[in-house]
């Protein structure tokens, strides 16, 4: 059994009257790669912040391993890309928490250089963030999250609104970090098909966990309907599930085998 990094039990969290999370259970172990999927407003970001330890649920318990270091990558569409900072300045923001001087320490600069090289973005350090491509911007924010040597990396919608090449680029980078450095990765996304092949564990969330486990086992029309509130079909291609609109299935079901066994 892998070491537990975070264990959430029976968590209910409310921002105001409406609960964002209801009686939610989730465990993240060392080296896990977990994708959280669900519709808008299903509590994905809230759950991520509960895992990060920023939000404390009003009901339920959250256990976090001692000395657990966490890196957080926000939704990039919330970033002001016209803000006057370079890629290096963004990465150095997260370093040197106790440094009171405006300039970064030698150690922080050394660590930033190492992280830039590790993510193959060493040539971007002095570029303004607006001039970077979507994939490069994601890498810069992942680099910032890596500055504190995290054992748990949390990413909020890292592949939403990006093109296919960028999605592959980001997911492969996260896969590498998970495999080579053993960093546990938890990401939220709307892109079911994009994530299904990459994660060890998929969590279908709609204010509470509808299903969690191997994507090949849990992605069924029933689970998806409970998660998204809309009829969806699941096809199988090369052993991996592909989720399609219920209407789309009727137009072209000849090329893919319908995943009927769970229906």
């Amino acid at each position, binding site marked *: 059994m892998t070491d537990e990094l975070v264990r959430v039990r029976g968590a209910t969290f409310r921002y105001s009257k409406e609960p964002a999370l209801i009686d939610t259970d989730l465990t993240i172990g060392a080296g896990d790669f977990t994708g959280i999927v669900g519709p808008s407003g299903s509590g994905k970001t809230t759950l991520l912040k509960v895992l*990060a330890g920023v939000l404390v649920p009003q009901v339920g318990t959250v256990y976090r391993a001692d000395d657990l270091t966490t890196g957080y990558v926000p939704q990039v569409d919330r970033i002001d890309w016209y803000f006057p900072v370079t890629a290096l300045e963004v990465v150095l923001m997260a370093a040197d928490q106790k440094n009171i001087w405006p300039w970064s320490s030698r150690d922080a600069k050394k660590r930033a250089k190492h992280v830039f090289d590790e993510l193959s973005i060493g040539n971007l350090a002095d570029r303004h963030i607006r001039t970077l491509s979507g994939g490069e911007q994601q890498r810069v924010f992942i680099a*910032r999250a890596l500055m504190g040597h995290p054992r748990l990396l949390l990413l909020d919608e890292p592949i939403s609104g990006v093109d296919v090449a960028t999605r592959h680029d980001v997911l492969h980078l996260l896969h590498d970090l998970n495999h080579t450095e053993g960093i546990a990765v938890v990401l939220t996304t709307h892109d079911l098909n994009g994530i299904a092949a990459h994660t060890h564990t998929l969590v279908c969330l709609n204010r509470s966990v509808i299903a969690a486990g191997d994507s090949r086992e849990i992605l069924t029309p029933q689970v998806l309907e409970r998660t998204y509130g809309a009829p969806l079909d699941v096809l199988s291609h090369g052993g991996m599930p592909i989720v399609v609109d219920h209407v789309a299935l009727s137009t072209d079901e000849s090329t893919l085998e319908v995943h009927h066994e769970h229906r």
Partner: protein
Amino acid sequence: MTTSPYLLTNRHSRYTTNIDSLLEPFRYFSGAIAVATIAGALCALIGIYVVLRGMSYIGHGLSHAIFGWAVVSFAGGLNFYVGAGIGGFVSTLMINGVARRKIVGADAAIGIVTTAVFALGVALVSRIGSFSRNFEAALFGNVLGVTSTDVLVVACVGVAVSATIFFRYRPLLFSTFDPEVADIVGRSVRSNDALLSFLLAATVVATMQVLGVTLIAAALVAPPATARLLTDRFSRMMVIAVGIGAVSGFLGVYGSYFLDIASGAAVVLTDSAFFLAAFIFTSDRVRKHWRSNRLRDREPQGADSSRA
């Protein structure tokens, strides 16, 4: 008929007279020039965060609210700076509190809170009639009327705000750029917001007498906006904005002596002139024109004939 000092026949005398007339403002109000220079730099420094946080309207509103609090504190027999300072800080907290109710929104919150307190001040002025302090100066700025206490307050607030921003540079930058993650990594956004509100209130209170309530927003916003046009680096933006603010304060008051106009208006007009110049200088058309001229200059001589 009197002879103009500029028409003296002796060249040396004319030169000396011209220099004398240029130095005249320093002789009569060097204190005013100094305080305007510090006030311009100070407003620009805190204005960087105001502009980058998209809170330009709060500077405008807050100065009005502080005027209201100043009148209230004066009517209540409180010290002008203490009353206005505390009132300004309370106003920003009230704005944040109202803005948190998303259904109202930040713009409406600023509009409601600041104009309500401003109206209270105006009502008190009209009800009480006369004050020992000249509130017209606070409304429109009167750098020539600043007392030694005003100068001392601007200097002390300038040092305190600069020192705070120096030692809180990194957390303030992080919480301005990415408040969501700053909170997650332990840079408390709420405490940084409260700190900025306090610094902004202190700056507006201290510089109100110099620039005036109605014009202070421009001194907060114009230099950082100008600097933002000229650089993509935060630290450089800070240096350029403070430089423009200081030079505008200096030139504005200095020029107001010769042009015989209100000092606050002169400072803001200088700020605006810098912004206009930067806006034109950084426009695509001007940049393209300069780039093509540079390329033409670099082209080797005789290139045309060889092509021919």
